[in-house]
């Protein structure tokens, strides 16, 4: 299978033979991390090997997409960021319930984000064929995780 080296709309991104699988899964709405068959640790950013125990192979694991906000900030001044972003936008670190922490963007937050707020992945097509995992705060009034 030919590995497309570039990601549409994100000219600096260089996909490699391993990460290519992550990007294809993202296009299908799946959020993947890597799992070590020896020590069980989940790793993100994903790697071919386990950084904890140096087992030379890992397996892909699909996550539920549920997590909690670890921290956030509203970027109000545009400064050499990807073309699809317009200020103001909300950057965040989200801790998946499975363990790993992700750098992400909060999708259309209606109120000021809260640290600890439960959230769920929402893949957004930021350029043709390019899907990124953003996160949406779960509205607890409508039956979200409390």
């Amino acid at each position, binding site marked *: 299978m030919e590995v497309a080296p570039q990601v549409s709309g994100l000219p600096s991104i260089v*996909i490699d033979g391993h990460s290519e699988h992550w990007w294809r899964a993202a296009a299908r709405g799946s959020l993947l991390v890597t799992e070590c068959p020896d020590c069980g640790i989940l790793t*993100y950013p994903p790697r071919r090997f386990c950084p904890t125990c140096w087992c030379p192979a890992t397996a892909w694991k699909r996550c539920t997409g549920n997590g909690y906000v670890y921290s*956030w900030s509203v970027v109000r001044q545009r400064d*050499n960021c*990807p073309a699809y972003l317009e200020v103001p936008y909300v950057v965040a670190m989200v801790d998946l319930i499975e363990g790993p922490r992700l750098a992400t963007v909060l999708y259309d937050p209606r109120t000021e984000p809260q640290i600890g707020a439960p959230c769920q992945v929402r893949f957004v097509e930021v350029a043709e064929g390019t899907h990124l995992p953003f996160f949406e705060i779960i509205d607890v009034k409508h039956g979200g995780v409390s």
Partner: protein
Amino acid sequence: MRREERDVAIVGAALSDLGRLDDVAAHDLHFQATSRALDDAGLGKVDVDGFFSCGLGTLAPIEICEYLDIRPTIVNSTMVGGSSWEFMVLDAMSAIRAGQASVIVLSYGSTLRSDLRKGVRPSNLAFGGAGPLQFDEPFGHTLISKYAMAARRHMWQYGTTEEQLASISCVAREYASLNPGAYYREPLSVDDVLQSPMVADPLTKLQCCIRSDGGGAIVLADAETARRCRKEPVWVLGAGQAVSHVSMSEWDDFCLTPAVESGRRAFEHAGLKPADVDVVQLYDSFTITVLLALENLGFCSPGEGGAFVESGSLGLGGALPTNTDGGGLSHAHPGHRGIFLLVEATRQLRDECGPRQVRDAAVACVSGMGGWFSSSGTVLLGRD
């Protein structure tokens, strides 16, 4: 490993021209800084054994050495961000103790401000998108927003307030008003700081370092050389390095920076405690950088940084005078500020600071933070 000997000293320290320098190349700032620092020491170009520098030129630091016509026997171009010069002090100390050099120059020069004005580079640097960065880069986490997220976490965890963070900018400006070399010297109130434009919540513009052109240099030497230099030696008592993360997702606790480890290593190396320190120079890329360093180095307890900075402790008459030149927040910040911390600490210990002099300063702590809490280098200095 603790050593009692005072065998490595800073014997020269100087700054280049600073501020708004549209017509000077960064290379020439290196010449200014290095030549002034050697002159300060009473040494010359021919005395230089080691030359340590990073961030400019091809095959750093060879291009700068060539430009200055310095022929070093050893070089170092450790580049871990603004803390690189604090890292270099430990490496220089080790080289001198190993007998590989008697005199080592650490030099820095940058035209960040004029480069930004000319559009030579963007303010928020990008580091590409290969390898693990491809999972960071797409999300537009600007440098300032990374620091902002650390501030937000600290506010959530400990109740630190925006006013407490802002007070750090005010103290820096007070010192700047006493420093003729500082770029911004007009008084600042907490309100001024909080009303300045929001860059990335909760960091307002006046909580962010300024952009300057400028550089600096220090000269390190062995004890024998130090005795024949112009001024009283400022001994390197100990130093420590620590590194953390490049991906923010790999940083475990946003309230614990590598300063925890670099500080512990430096104090242990020197056989000192935070209570022994009379004056501190801390990297102040942003207000939160200072607050976290104060906690992580052990100058106050975790979570107490807010109360500590608000209490007046950092001011000239306070318990822990901090960033006495006005810092990156008011004095100068050409991108990687670590050398400025070392120059100011040296001047404090030599009693050269005039109106901003900390009386009877005998021990200084210098701690540089690089990247986005990615690295920390701590150095302890003392006079006889």
